[in-house]
């Protein structure tokens, strides 16, 4: 078995009094050793919830996992006592958050914050942990690491803070890095640097990356495999180049078409996906995307079979996948990937 983490049939709901939101519905995937798996979808489709569920960071009062497992080296993280989860967080899984401006504690130096996980999980002394924090700052390419250890977060730029967050997440050499939209809050030039850094570190440290993003450009440049998520379900999954070359779900097709410069419209107009994400307060039978889908037919509202493979390692939950691919065959982005 060469998988780092294996998510199986994960379903999760949020409860607020009588109200229920079915945030995740039978999500299954696995991350192989050394690969970058990207999770794509629009806001509110369940990307971050998936990451938080793996880490066990969701509020216990409102979030309930109704079924499924998250297996890591044979251990099921779902239902694991908090004390054992703490041994895994920051040690075997590291996480980087979306907003580097608020994800560092303003009252401690960055050296202290990077060293914290090392002291906790590796039982290092203060001096050893600071040594390690210094090496981590070098690793994430922050210049003048020795002096930067004693800097406070407000003295750093957004890109540097995100580098510090990455150093914090990686200080114990985890097998999996979950990066939850790590570049969304950064400007474009810094985005590229951070993505490059994550890719380099992945190769250097031999870890796997679960990269959550809504930016297909990021996926195309950094990921090995991708999953497209919609309304709490994974609707298409496969190698990045296969999904771009043979989009097989109405939603994937719409996402590709909405990329600036790749749509059907002329330059300067932005193509959007009509409608909004459906309410998730009751389970949706059939394809959740059907109401917004240009390819929908009456059969789409029938309950779904498990996503079949359209080609090797490439699954799609769409019953109209052939029609979708036919329609996308001549779009410039699909042609460029073939």
């Amino acid at each position: 078995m060469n998988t780092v983490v294996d998510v199986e049939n994960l379903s999760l709901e949020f409860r607020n009094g009588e109200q229920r939101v079915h945030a995740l519905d039978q999500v299954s995937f696995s991350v192989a050793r050394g690969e970058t798996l990207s999770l794509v979808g629009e806001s509110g489709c369940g990307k971050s919830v998936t990451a938080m569920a793996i880490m066990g960071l969701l509020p216990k009062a409102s979030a309930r996992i109704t079924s499924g497992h998250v297996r890591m080296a044979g251990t099921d993280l779902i239902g694991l006592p908090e004390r054992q989860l703490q041994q895994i967080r920051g040690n075997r899984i590291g996480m980087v958050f979306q907003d580097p401006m608020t994800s560092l504690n303003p009252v401690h130096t960055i050296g202290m914050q990077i060293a914290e996980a090392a002291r906790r999980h590796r039982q290092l002394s203060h001096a050893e942990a600071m040594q390690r924090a210094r090496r981590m700052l070098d690793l994430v390419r922050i210049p003048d690491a020795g002096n930067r250890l004693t800097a406070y977060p407000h003295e750093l730029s957004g890109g540097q803070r995100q580098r510090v967050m990455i150093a914090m997440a990686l200080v114990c050499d985890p097998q999996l890095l979950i990066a939850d939209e790590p570049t969304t809050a950064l400007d474009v030039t810094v985005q590229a640097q951070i993505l490059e850094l994550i890719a380099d570190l992945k190769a250097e440290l031999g870890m796997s990356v679960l990269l959550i993003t809504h930016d297909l450009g990021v996926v195309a440049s950094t990921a090995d495999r991708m999953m497209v998520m919609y309304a709490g379900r994974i609707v298409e999954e496969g190698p990045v180049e296969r999904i771009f070359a043979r989009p097989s779900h109405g939603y994937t097709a719409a996402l590709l078409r909405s990329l600036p410069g790749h749509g059907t419209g002329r330059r300067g107009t932005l193509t959007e996906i009509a409608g909004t994400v459906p309410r998730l307060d009751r389970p949706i039978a059939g394809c959740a995307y059907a109401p917004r889908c240009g390819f929908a037919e009456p059969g789409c509202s029938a309950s779904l079979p498990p996503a079949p493979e359209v080609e090797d390692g490439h699954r799609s939950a769409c019953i109209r996948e052939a029609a979708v691919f036919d329609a996308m065959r001549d779009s410039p982005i699909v042609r460029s990937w073939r």
Partner: protein
Amino acid sequence: MSLTEAAHPAPTAALSRALNYARRNPATTICCALLLGFVLIAIFAPLLAGDPLRIDPAQRLKPPSDTAIWGRDHLGRDVYARAVYGTRVSMLVGFSVAVLVTILGVAIGIYAGLSHIGGAVVMRLTDAMMAIPAVLLAIAFASLMNAGLLTVIIAITIPEVPRMVRLVRSVVLGVRQQLHVTAAISIGTSGLPLVWRHILPNTLGPVLVQATYACASAIIASAVLSFLGVGLSPEVPSWGGMMADARQQFRIHPVLMLYPGVLLSLLVLAVNILGDRLSDALDPRKARRSSL
């Protein structure tokens, strides 16, 4: 004391920075000086004044003289000496209550902010306590215990704690939602280290400000208790007690009321203004504006 020490950490560069600050913030500087003055008066009271307890009926209600520069009260005691020694009671009660309220309030407030059920219970208890006027509650506690300074401190602390608990709880509820706390949990931090390193330091700003207000209101409350004759025995020099004594002679010798009254107002005003300045300084939005 710590305020002035913090203002002069290193001799030369820090001194010029402190002077610069003083020039730009005259009100803060005056209040600091006032407070420092009161602290010094309280510490060096025996050097500054004579015996505040000595009764001399022959000298009663004598106007100011060389031996008693502010005159003498209805028992012939030195008003100046009583006012100087009265500083001790006010300062001691003010600072002790501020410290006790902070310790208790922060501990209970953090618990209430982190525990779901515990928080609900604590909040109902504070609701109940805050429904009773603080001075009334303090009088009740003071009359249950033996007279003495400790009694006064405890009696004033208890009604002040709920206010601090509510404040700390509300701040903790906000802080624990912040991304950096989630990030700390995501690297495996938990339990006491999480509270101590990530939640507590981020609540300290509002807590410090509330502590200064608790200090000011404790000084007033101690004067009220002495004025009403609860807690401290009447011969102990205190500003409240002096005002209670002066009340009977108010029409003939109003100035006897004035001395402790003005001192009390000055001290409370200084503490309150410092609290306001502290809250401005610790408010990141205002602090950023002034530093740019």
